[in-house]
């Protein structure tokens, strides 16, 4: 039985408890025994605080600097519900004010229902952004979650006919400068260059990428880069969070 299947199985048995844990954690409730025993929770192995200086993507063009919002509680017992229609509705839902236009600041807090969530400006130490570790390290819920991610891409010139290339666990939706770039639906694993946008233009100067990643059970993460017409990574850009 594969890990994912096993996880799904386990979810039938124990996930309800985990979800309840997630809900209760989000509202400042009790931790279960597993988390209680983990006293070394930290995002440090996976992230460093973003600095004021601009950051280039990694050697393969992956964008590592992101403003990440602590997970929104979005209980789902299974990822099989992530059809296109479900996702469009889920991502169109307004969770916090100015959700599609806000350029959040580091440490800024937003209210989502009963949750008070914080934006974190971070640099991922990996090519991908390990949202599960982000949530786990911050003692937040890890399953039944919806993450928001924002970054500013500074382009030295107008770049036409490039594509945003995304992989995500699980489903996700991405916007460039307020316009939908792509939707990755279904119960997905993160694979580099899984889904690509249609041909896009990066404006000279600042461009804003906004992403929403949703997961029920599973280790949430994503990776994003831009590629040119030949699939080669775009690397002569920088990222910042303000």
């Amino acid at each position, binding site marked *: 039985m594969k890990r994912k299947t096993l996880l*799904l199985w386990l979810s*039938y048995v124990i996930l309800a408890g985990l979800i309840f844990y997630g809900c209760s954690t989000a509202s400042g409730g009790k931790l279960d025994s597993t988390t209680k025993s983990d006293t070394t929770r930290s995002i440090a192995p996976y992230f460093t605080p973003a600095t004021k200086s601009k950051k280039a993507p990694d050697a393969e063009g992956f964008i590592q600097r992101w403003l990440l919002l602590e997970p929104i509680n979005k209980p789902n017992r299974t990822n099989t519900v992530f059809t*296109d229609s479900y996702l469009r509705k889920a991502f169109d839902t307004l969770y916090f004010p100015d959700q599609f236009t806000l350029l959040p600041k580091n440490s800024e807090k937003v209210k989502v229902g009963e949750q008070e969530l914080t934006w974190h400006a971070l640099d991922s130490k990996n090519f991908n952004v390990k949202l599960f570790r982000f949530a786990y390290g911050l003692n937040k819920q890890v399953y039944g979650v919806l993450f928001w991610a924002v970054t500013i891409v500074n382009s030295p010139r107008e770049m036409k006919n490039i*594509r945003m290339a995304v992989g995500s666990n699980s489903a996700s939706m991405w916007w460039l400068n307020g316009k939908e770039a792509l939707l990755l639906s279904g119960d997905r694993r993160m694979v580099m260059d899984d889904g*690509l946008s249609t*041909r896009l233009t990066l404006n000279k100067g600042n461009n804003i990428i906004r992403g929403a990643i949703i997961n029920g059970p599973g280790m949430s993460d994503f990776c994003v880069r831009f590629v040119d017409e030949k699939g080669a990574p775009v690397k002569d850009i920088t990222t910042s969070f303000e």
Partner: protein
Amino acid sequence: MKKIFSASALLLLLVTGKVLSQTGRPFIHDPSTIMECAGRYYTFGTRGGGLISEDGWRWDSGGVRPGGGAAPDVLKIGDRYLVVYGATGGGLGGGHNGKILTMWNKTLDPKSPDFKYSEAVVVASSDGVEDNDAIDPGLLLDPNDGRLWVFYGTYFGFIRLAELDPKTGKRVEGNKAINIAIDCEATDLMYKDGWYYLLGTHGTCCDGANSTYNIVVGRSRKVTGPYLDNVGRDMLKGGGKMVLAAGGRVNGPGHFGRIVLQEGVEKMSCHYEADLDQSGRSVLGIRPLLWKNGWPAGGDNFKEGTYEIESERRGYALELAVDFTRMPGGMRGPNRNPDEPIKPIPSQQLADVINNWPTGNIGVRIGDYMFRPHQKWTITAAPDAGGYLGGPYFKIVIAGTDRALAATADAEVITVPAFTGAPEQLWRIDQLTDGTYRIMPKIVPNSKDPLALISSGDSTPTLAPFDMGSDNSKWNFKAH
């Protein structure tokens, strides 16, 4: 070709019938290698004349080659075409005293003011007694050193190789022909990746539906041989690995010709001794040429049907971007009764899902193949839409619907609710040399560039230039 080739066979060429291989009147015997000249395709056959095609799919008579005789070949050298053919020989005149002649023309278009053949010159011959019959010639311009070779012969003795002057088309003075094979006729030579390939036709010629003609090959590091087959037999001892035999409703492939359209896209021409759907007449065949482990092999022309269209990139399938509709049931728990009766579960049907699909344009993506209705594509020749070398333009629709795959003006792919026959809904399908396929729209609106269906990501199709070096450019058709 052998002497049982008769006038009655030629009479058959006047009969029309159901088209299988090419449209128009593609009736020919011993076709020369297909040449492109000023935007048209040409091939010449035995006893003079030839076929012309505007698009490579519809062929009609109209080619002009004087001299009669048998089994010509054509090679473009510089800006001229060198035509070679066999006069008499092959028992056509009652014996085996044949002659090989060459002549030049600046164009193959008989309507061109430049159309004029030079006087034919004899470059090889057989005396009717020797172990060779000078007929069925072919030409090779060696890409390594520019030397020009002619090869000729039939089952009466050896296949011989002689050198010509590429400037004059005449025999190199003092050149002595050498033997390179036996038990062949209609030979051809080609070069690829350090190997010379000698293709010969074995079997029985000119007996219609009973002809056993088939094309075999051996290879050598030197143009002069020895040409060995895949088990090491010299073609001088009868060796040869099969390239193409009978199949479908056509039999007797012979007279191989190679056409390289671009890297990875190759075709072979031949005739079929008989097309059973066309009165058993001899017809022009054009099909993909594959390369497997260093050996050429005849590919299959695309067959209409319902397929998974699988991306060679990751193995995912082209599909409509619609909600995945779950089948009833789900994970079966471990506590089910082990003795419960086993019964089949019906596959998801189009009717189960189609009402959930949008009615307008729907996007296309690539996903895990689950034999679901949004992943099954029915591909049929589009009526009256013309074609290209080796195939007609196809329409590609979701099985059971008229929802058609189409190219967009921004070089992406979508589906439209109904096939209209618009050129952006017509698709060219070429099997590539590695056995995978290239899929190209006839046109991309507002674009002059030939673009192909490409996997820009595992889950994302687009239109972009074809690249044989990338699996992003390749697809497979799987009939489940």
